[in-house]
């Protein structure tokens, strides 16, 4: 019964890391740059939050499936096949949680006082140094809140994951899918235990992360 838990944590941590890197970079970029199609790009990045997970799952199958537009070449050139693997679950979870980090990061970067960065620049700091030592720490709380939400979303991801990674016990069966599987099989006792387990883990994550956020101030 603990296998789905470890798998879920592994998938959620990696998905949060992936979505974190992309979301922070995109949030920073979108907060600072204005270009034609800016609003369109913003809508596109927010899309995974409003689309049904099954639609995302279908997009993923069409893109990274064995005969997908990208998947075909991943398979031919590198022998990589994401369908029915936990790596596929990571991709699904990071896409659904990306908007949460991106939105939080963008708002945090926009709220930061631009004069700080300007001051650093006049003192001769490079762009990367400004980002790492001024902008990112100033946006720290917002980004951290985004990461926390993304982690929670990644832990609970179901629809897109089921479509791309399937329901393979021990391989891709995460907690949410294990609950679904137990209910489908009429195995109520197991469903109940899994439900209690996931609730406890989520409570733990929420309490710990809010402590971390508080102590930072």
């Amino acid at each position, binding site marked *: 019964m603990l296998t789905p838990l470890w798998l879920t944590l592994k998938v959620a941590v990696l998905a949060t890391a992936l979505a974190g890197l992309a979301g922070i970079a995109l949030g920073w970029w979108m907060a600072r740059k204005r270009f034609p199609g800016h609003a369109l790009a913003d809508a596109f990045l927010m899309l995974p939050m409003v689309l049904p997970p099954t639609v995302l799952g279908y997009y993923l*199958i069409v893109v990274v*499936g*064995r*005969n997908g537009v990208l998947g075909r070449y991943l398979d031919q050139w590198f022998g990589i096949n994401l*369908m*029915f693997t936990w790596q596929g679950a990571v991709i699904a979870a990071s896409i659904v949680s990306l908007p949460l980090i991106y939105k939080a990061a963008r708002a945090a970067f926009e709220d930061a006082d631009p004069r700080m960065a300007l001051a650093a620049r006049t003192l001769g700091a490079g762009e990367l140094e400004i980002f790492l030592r001024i902008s990112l720490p100033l946006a720290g709380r917002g980004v951290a809140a985004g990461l926390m939400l993304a982690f929670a979303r990644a832990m609970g991801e179901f629809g897109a994951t*089921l479509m791309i990674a*399937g*329901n*393979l*016990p021990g391989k891709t069966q995460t907690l949410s899918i294990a609950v679904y*599987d137990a*209910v*489908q*099989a*009429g195995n109520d006792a197991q469903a109940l235990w899994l439900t209690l387990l996931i609730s406890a883990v989520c409570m733990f994550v929420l309490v710990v992360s809010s402590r971390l956020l508080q102590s930072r101030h």
Partner: protein
Amino acid sequence: MPLHTSVPRTLARTLATGLCALALSSTLHAQALTVSAAASLTNAFQAIGQAFEKANPGAKVTFNFAASGPLLAQIQQGAPVDVFASADQETMNRAATAKLLADGTRADFAHNTLVVIVPSTAAKTPQALQDLAGADFKRIATGTPATVPVGRYTMEAVQKAGLTDALQPRWIFGESVRQVLNYVARGEVDAGFVYRTDALIEPEKARIAFTAPTTTPVSYPIAAIAASKNADAARQFIGFVRSAQGQEILEKFGFSRP
């Protein structure tokens, strides 16, 4: 101001009218029959439903298609189902043990066979179960054995052939036989176990490699649910499925007579 208040009021009125209409329509449809049927019956039962409604003016049949296991779990939880048709005897036996079936209504109405299919683009076609242990078949799909009958039939056949360990790391489990069919049709797996009637639906994307011998024959039982409020209509529907007309439709979709 009047404009301001009238908007929510109109909205409320529209909503209320809509809700009344919904409530009314659901009482009107109370005579509708709900049939939970195995996923492999999807196309055949939709055709039977249409014929049944045509033969019985005023009757309305609603179908709930899924793997037999989840359908049983729903009925056990008190889902308002009138008729249950499963793709194996074991699921129906569990329903009988749980006293969910109306007495004297259970009957077998169709037979099917288990086949191995491969994507139509596949270079190699296996000839027997032993071939599936070869290097060309890294991913083989079937239903989740605990809840999907096709998975159970598959495991029995594989065990009898002594291939349980050899094939164990290759399984990709689908939620229903139709998902297995979809995995093969998309080329996501190298082979899959489905019923012959399912394979006939996607002749362009998947081809039948061979018929897999099953230890238990693939037979479909149907029964009325004891808690049904439409007991007469439920019996009538079962009678229609077993009638000459019903059997003719089932045969058209590739099922054989029990």
